[in-house]
């Protein structure tokens, strides 16, 4: 029990500090790196809770793929710092107040309206392994799994369309001046 807390408390502190560091660092690059640390600690929590497959998916998908995409876009845009100063100073105060009210509500409900909290039941052998997840996924959740593939396809097409629209529009505007059909169309 004590060793569990010795593992939990420092990891929870690292998770909370890195989350706060993410939202207060001025440089978006440091925000991204803090978020990677946070994802790593959450992955360790998943391991403690017996979700090995989810923990490694967290590392590869979240800390790997998604954060690489974030870092790539930050570096591509050169958007580490915002150039324009913020316009509404009262927003910060209102946002902090609303956020702390949300936090207080959550803590109040968790600690002062407790359900009947019992210990953890024993889990079957292989709980949370890739085999167990895969069996569950392809037996009981086959349709959502297939819908996910459609969702990923749509996201991929959407990203490609959004990224290529600008180039297409500049090309067509270049054609506007040379194409006699379009220019004659414009002069009635």
């Amino acid at each position: 029990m004590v060793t569990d807390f010795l593992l939990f408390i420092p990891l929870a502190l690292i998770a909370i500090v890195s989350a706060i560091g993410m939202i207060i660092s001025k440089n978006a690059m440091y925000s991204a790196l803090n978020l990677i640390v946070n994802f790593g600690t959450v992955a360790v929590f998943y391991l403690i809770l017996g979700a090995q497959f989810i923990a490694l998916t967290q590392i590869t998908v979240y800390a790997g793929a998604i954060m690489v995409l974030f870092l790539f876009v930050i570096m591509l845009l050169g958007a580490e710092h915002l150039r324009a100063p913020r316009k509404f100073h009262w927003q910060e105060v209102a946002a902090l107040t609303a956020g702390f009210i949300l936090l207080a509500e959550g803590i109040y409900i968790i600690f002062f309206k407790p359900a009947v909290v019992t210990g953890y039941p024993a889990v079957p052998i292989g709980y949370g392994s890739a085999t167990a997840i895969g069996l569950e996924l392809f037996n009981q959740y086959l349709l959502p799994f297939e819908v996910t593939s459609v969702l990923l396809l749509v996201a991929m097409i959407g990203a490609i369309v959004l990224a290529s629209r600008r180039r297409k529009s500049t090309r067509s505007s270049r054609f506007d001046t040379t194409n006699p059909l379009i220019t004659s169309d414009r002069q009635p």
Partner: protein
Amino acid sequence: MVPITYYVSLSAILFAIGAIGVLVRRNAIVIFMSVELMLNSANLAFVAFARYYAALNGQIFVFFVMAVAAAEVAVGLALIVAIFHSKQSINVDDLDSLKG
């Protein structure tokens, strides 16, 4: 093992920090990362409750949340890049018109 209350409180704290980040920050990319933090805290609660009931459904749901988050990040970052190319800024205070 640490009681489930601790995991759920940690999840609530991370969610609140993410919500504060969405509200306070003006950089669209950081707002996006805060949304990821909130999704992640919800995932932590899912996994904790899955362990609490010794059921796998919570972990399956986390799997689907990750797929949705990946799709959302791909489209959202493409949108941010498109917005940056038309406005030369990703400050959300500057994005006050629907017309590009």
